[in-house]
């Protein structure tokens, strides 16, 4: 059987990564986007997203990848994914107008037997309402993780497939495509699959909320959460890959979206979901951890400090700043000078009246009274605390994600603060 031709409509983060990963499995792929400039940039190898290994993978599989701004070109595909990212507002509410318009353009372009598969983040009930024969209409859960998107797309743990009738075999080309990834395939009804996506994220938020709650307590009673978490990871009921690292609240937009969707559905149906509101309250509290620390540990000792901020992205290995704790902090540091550095995000992303951009982390730290490591970029792990201490004016390191070695910071005579441990004694 000839390998299926696969289309991806919407070449934002999700669509682009998925298209390139699919091509790497030997399929011919057509990427479609209404934005001609974006299509031209991608075709020329200028990818609009930052992900480890993505550029290399695109280059290596260029022969099987083509990009177009003409929806009619999708008529050659056996399967077309609607793969555009769905934007959210400040309250986590999805704006579905973009993908609805995209679907409206794609359906008329489909070949007579082609399958349409919704890959983007939609609320339960969305897929069933689409105007296409249900034997050709599927929903597939995406589990894109910013900063690990290629790895996740190449080696998915499983495919969760929403169908009109889970008992009916999947169409041959679609089954062939999914089988190429060598992981379990779980067909279920549309609504189950749509909710499964949300359930995954709710479980992740639950884990990280537990970690945040007990890390906070650890800070107050002399415990160290980083000693506790490894013990939990060895418990099979919790798992080695559990989200047990404390953080600065939920960010990135996708988790917030799913929590907002559950709250909305709960309000509509009357289901009990108070735990979701508790997750959000916990997130809001942890987001301001660095701000509180600055006010308790830095400002009482230095009236007019300069802060070095390392990292602007909402997490490592991404250019995204959606709900970034770093940018949220910067909004509240207006009275003081800041020096910023992020390996990917430009200093102009920091809305601040007295901001100076630096070309590397050590340069940002020069003359600062406190260094705040707000994004755990891998390259920050190689920073030597002694090197920072040598260029700083003050002695405070705030390292929420513990990218530096606490003992090395202590040895460099720095006051070191991290999530999950009390005071500067970590």
């Amino acid at each position, binding site marked *: 059987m000839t390998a299926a031709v696969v289309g991806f409509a919407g070449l934002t983060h999700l669509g682009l990564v998925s298209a390139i990963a699919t091509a790497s499995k030997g399929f011919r792929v057509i990427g479609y986007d209404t934005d001609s400039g974006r299509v031209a940039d991608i075709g020329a190898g200028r990818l609009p997203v930052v992900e480890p290994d993505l550029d290399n993978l695109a280059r290596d599989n260029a022969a099987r990848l083509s990009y177009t701004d003409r929806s009619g070109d999708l008529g050659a595909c056996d399967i077309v994914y609607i793969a555009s990212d769905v934007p959210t507002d400040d309250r986590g509410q999805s704006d579905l107008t973009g993908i609805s318009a995209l679907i409206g353009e794609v359906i008329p372009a489909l070949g007579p037997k082609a399958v349409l598969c919704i890959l983007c983040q939609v609320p339960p009930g969305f897929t069933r309402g689409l105007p296409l024969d249900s034997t050709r209409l599927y929903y597939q859960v995406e589990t894109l993780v910013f900063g690990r998107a290629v790895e996740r797309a190449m080696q998915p743990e499983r495919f969760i497939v929403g169908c009109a009738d889970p008992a009916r075999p999947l169409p041959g080309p679609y089954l062939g495509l999914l089988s190429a990834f060598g992981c379990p395939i779980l067909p279920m009804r549309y609504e189950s699959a749509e909710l499964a996506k949300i359930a995954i994220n709710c479980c992740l938020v639950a884990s990280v909320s537990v970690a945040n709650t007990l890390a906070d307590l650890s800070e107050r009673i002399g415990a160290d959460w980083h000693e506790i978490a490894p013990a939990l990871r060895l418990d099979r009921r919790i798992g080695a890959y559990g989200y047990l690292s404390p953080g600065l609240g939920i960010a990135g937009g996708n988790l917030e979206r799913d929590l907002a969707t559950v709250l909305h559905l709960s309000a509509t149906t009357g289901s009990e979901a108070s735990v979701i509101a508790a997750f959000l309250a916990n997130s809001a509290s942890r987001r301001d951890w660095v701000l*509180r620390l600055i006010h308790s540990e830095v400002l009482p000792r230095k009236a007019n400090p300069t802060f070095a901020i390392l990292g602007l992205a909402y997490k490592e290995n991404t250019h995204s700043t959606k709900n970034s704790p770093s940018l949220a902090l910067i909004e509240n540091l207006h009275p003081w000078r800041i020096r910023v550095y992020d390996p990917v995000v430009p200093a102009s992303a920091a809305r601040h009246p007295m901001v100076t951009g630096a070309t590397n982390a050590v340069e940002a730290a020069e003359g600062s009274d406190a260094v705040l490591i707000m994004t755990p970029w891998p390259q920050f792990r190689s920073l030597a605390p002694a090197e920072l201490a040598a260029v700083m004016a003050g002695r405070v390191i705030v390292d929420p994600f513990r990218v530096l070695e606490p003992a090395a910071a202590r040895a460099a005579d720095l006051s070191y603060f991290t999530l999950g441990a009390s005071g500067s004694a970590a």
Partner: protein
Amino acid sequence: MLTHKNQNPQKPARVVIIGAGGFVGGAIAAQLAKEQVPVLGITRKEVDLLQPDAGKTLAAKLRDDDCVVFVSALAPARNTAALLKNLMMAEHVIAALAEKPVAHLVYVSSDAVYEDAANPVTERSICQPSSMHGMMHAARELALRNEVKVPLAILRPSLLYGENDPHNGYGPNRFRRLAEKGEAIALFGEGEEQRDHVYVDDVARLAALAIMHRSTGILNVATGSSISFRGIAELVVALSGRPTEVRGTPRQNPITHRHFDISECLKAFPQFRYTPLREGLARAARTSARTVS
């Protein structure tokens, strides 16, 4: 949280303080005087808010460009009668502001609007008062929000202390007065309950900031640091220099604590610093000693 209509502080044409003769109102008036802001202080002598024509009387004193600080209350409101009187006072202030809308309104409420178990308390905590006093403030807040068409800031102070506090309730003020007389301080139980105590001048300084920034929204007034009543008593005794006994008594009620997360204050007024407890108590003691001598 607060949002500022004036990003840079700006003195209003005049501030009218309803309840200027009280503990908090007096402190706000003094703070504004220090900052050379014109103030019209209104006490019960000028306008008795329980009188039927109080709304008209008050309206006649207001100007369009005034900032009004509403701090007057019959406190603590312990029963239904006191609740109703306090609501009547609010009704008359609302009537005055309907007749003469002003530029800005600051209402001084209380952290008693929150549920007892709301730890740590933030401005997002649910309002679920367990006392008539808390319900009174919650009802007044709601009425002001719904019925007054003026930009509104609500301040919710925690427990206050200061030399001029007319009340002699359990806490820093009573402990200080007992210590000054060398009389024993009796704790409830062993004084384990932790509370966040705010020096009254800090409320005044925050009110002045909210006025200058023409802020709207809600802000808790708390230091973010709670201490047990025994801790307070021992601190007061140490500051007094007298060998005052601090003793426990059989506990009548379960132990409850209250802590605040003051992140919203750090965001609203990044350069504001609360008076540390030891310093505030020492200042209150010094002022009190000067008054006595």
